[in-house]
């Protein structure tokens, strides 16, 4: 199979982007966008589709098994993991660009530290003893599977970088804490949840179909809303 890999590139954060294409041919039907990027970068010399010398493509990867979220990028207009996108399932031209909701560092690398900051604001940690019980562990497991890739934020109509709505990348880790926390720590986190998740979520649920980990977002959202709103309803 032969593909043209068309990449939106920039060498540094403030630079104007440009498009550079590379030709990638392989016999491997299971080859992914990640395979193509690795193999293109291993070429000596590295030439683009027009035969001009090119700099190595900057992108992030790690597990290559959709377990770590490193290689999230926009592929043919939709956010996805490079390791989870087979070239055989794409057209002749495969267009890659960096996630748009985060500042670009270079080429396909973005700075996702806003997601870490959101989890800090949400105080995503167990304050004292967490609960662990057969009955809640299925939900906890689901929540803790979030890989913090950022794909959900890319498609969310309500999420803006630097805004006060943290999106599903904030909701999912928070769902674990809400189901395992008690007392004053829980009260505090309910308030944070309402402020940064519940109030900003327009329920478009665009995130549901895009999550590479396939998180059961409906379930996590329903449980978390129930935990954090229950108290509010009781106060009325």
């Amino acid at each position, binding site marked *: 199979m032969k593909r043209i890999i068309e990449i939106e590139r920039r060498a540094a954060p403030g630079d104007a982007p440009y498009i550079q294409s590379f030709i990638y041919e392989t016999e491997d039907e299971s080859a992914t966008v990640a*395979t193509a990027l690795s193999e293109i970068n291993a070429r000596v010399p590295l030439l683009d589709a027009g035969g001009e010398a090119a700099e190595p493509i900057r992108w992030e990867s790690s597990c290559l098994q959709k377990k770590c979220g490193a290689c999230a990028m926009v592929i043919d207009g939709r956010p996805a993991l490079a390791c989870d996108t087979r070239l055989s399932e794409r057209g002749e031209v495969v267009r890659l660009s960096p996630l748009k909701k985060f500042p670009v560092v270079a080429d396909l690398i973005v700075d996702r530290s806003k997601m870490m900051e959101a989890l800090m604001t949400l105080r995503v940690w167990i304050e004292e003893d967490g609960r662990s019980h*057969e009955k809640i562990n299925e939900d906890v497991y689901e929540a803790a599977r979030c890989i913090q890739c950022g794909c959900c934020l890319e498609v969310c109509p309500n999420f803006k970088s630097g805004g006060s709505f943290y999106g599903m990348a904030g909701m999912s880790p928070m769902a674990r804490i809400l189901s395992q926390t008690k007392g004053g720590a829980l009260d505090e986190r309910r308030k944070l949840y309402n402020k940064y998740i519940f109030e900003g979520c327009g329920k478009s649920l665009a995130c549901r179909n895009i999550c590479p980990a396939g998180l059961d977002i409906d379930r996590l959202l329903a449980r978390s809303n129930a935990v954090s709103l229950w108290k509010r309803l009781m106060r009325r």
Partner: protein
Amino acid sequence: MKAMVNIIGAGLAGLSAAVTLAKAGIGCRLFSRQSSERAQSVMAEGGINAALDTMGEGDTTAEHFSDTMKGGVYLADPNAVRGLTEGAPDIVREFVRLGVPFQMKGETLVLRNFGGQKKKRTAYAKSSTGKMLMSALIDECRKYEARGLVMRFPHHDFLSLVTEGGAVTGCAIGDTFTGDRLVFSGPVILSAGGPAGLFSGHTTGTTQNTGDAAATAFFHGVRFANLEFIQYHPTTVGISGKRMLISEAARGEGGRLFIERNGRPWYFMEEKYPELKNLMPRDVVSREIYAVCRDPECGGQAYLDMTHLSDDTWRGKLSDLREECIHFLGIDPAAEHLPVEPGIHYFMGGIWVDERHRTNIKNLLAAGECACQYHGANRLGGNSLLGAVYGGKTAAETLSREILSAPGYMEGFEHAPAGEPTVLSGNERDPAFERRLTDILMEGLGIVRSEEGMRLCIERIEALLKEDGMSDRMKARASLGLAMAKSAIMRRESRGSHFRRDCPERDDENYKKTSTAECIDGRVITGYLDIPPLRETV
């Protein structure tokens, strides 16, 4: 500059060290190429061992100790292993407190069978145990980050140690986003993972475990140990760019290995090892698969049969493994047999550390897969997550004890470190060179080794080292590879994962020893150290 401990690597061992230091009120910086969510630890699947005896089998920490020593063919430091196995139950209880969704019945942990162990001892969360431990520890670390005790540097590369008078005074770090080079004072804990990158494309590891941190440390005189012991996991499958692990949990929950012989399935592990069957230690299973696949009477391909597992097992314990097989291989293991082959999965050897995780260089400690501790010649499944957490904790405790007992220890690190960082030249990646080195190492350091094969491997790396245009960074990688091959060829016996067809027997008299390798003035020097005797307990 605030005096803090520097931790290189934010996987399980690094996080464990950070949290332990923070609990003692000692600040640390946590450096990693990417955030902890991308660490190789999130890929660990099957579970974490601890003799909690919740299954009514009368399990004890003494049995966990003896299984670990036996599995490692008596090459691990027995005092360290005793600490590990005795500390394991508290570690798992602590993870329960942190809310890890282990498999439970009510509030009691359910344990599963794992290789090389007769009793159920492995706590697990389906087959995503590493991810679940990491999520819990990342959140715990955030708690201390909020208190100013942990500073995360999630896009920062280790460049070099800073040393003066033979002691570490700090480290040089590169910001991969800005390209800035930063120098920090303070003791260093290396927890950068195993050198999977020396065998790029042939391992179950991540692309970020390049081996650069290990190679740099080696080049700077840090002593390594047991480098010849490379674990081939029995059940892996090739996917694009790497090998995908089929967790040992598959066999722990009843999966059976077979190969076709004369037109019929032959369950070779069950026939040859009637006691532990498919759950023999990994080195044994991998060698058996290697042998039966080369047996002219057999079909050439081994399979894992899980088609008889119950719906409950698939749903409750292995749903993630099944999803992965369907997604990446197009095979539903509940309905079809999985073709499997051994693949590189873990490095038992690494930076030499003592029982307290100190290296041969003052103020430098190491933990996790980058250190040589606990697993001897072969690691048992379920002991890597345990070893990472316990090792990180032990390294941090060693440092905090030194820091708290020596007034002024940390004050010495409040200024820019004494000494200059010696950053290796050529820090850019060179995939073509790396691939050549990988090919040479794969030829010499397979599941079954030979004198000629290893000799050729050494000659080829030595020739590579003499080529023009080799940067220091390339030399460091090649030297670490050379150390692996030299450690392997000098061990003229077979033990654990090191199997030689020319010396197939174990030789305790000459080789029940820790092999060591050091790089002195660019030359790789190998040797042996005695294994410390097990101390009497008081």
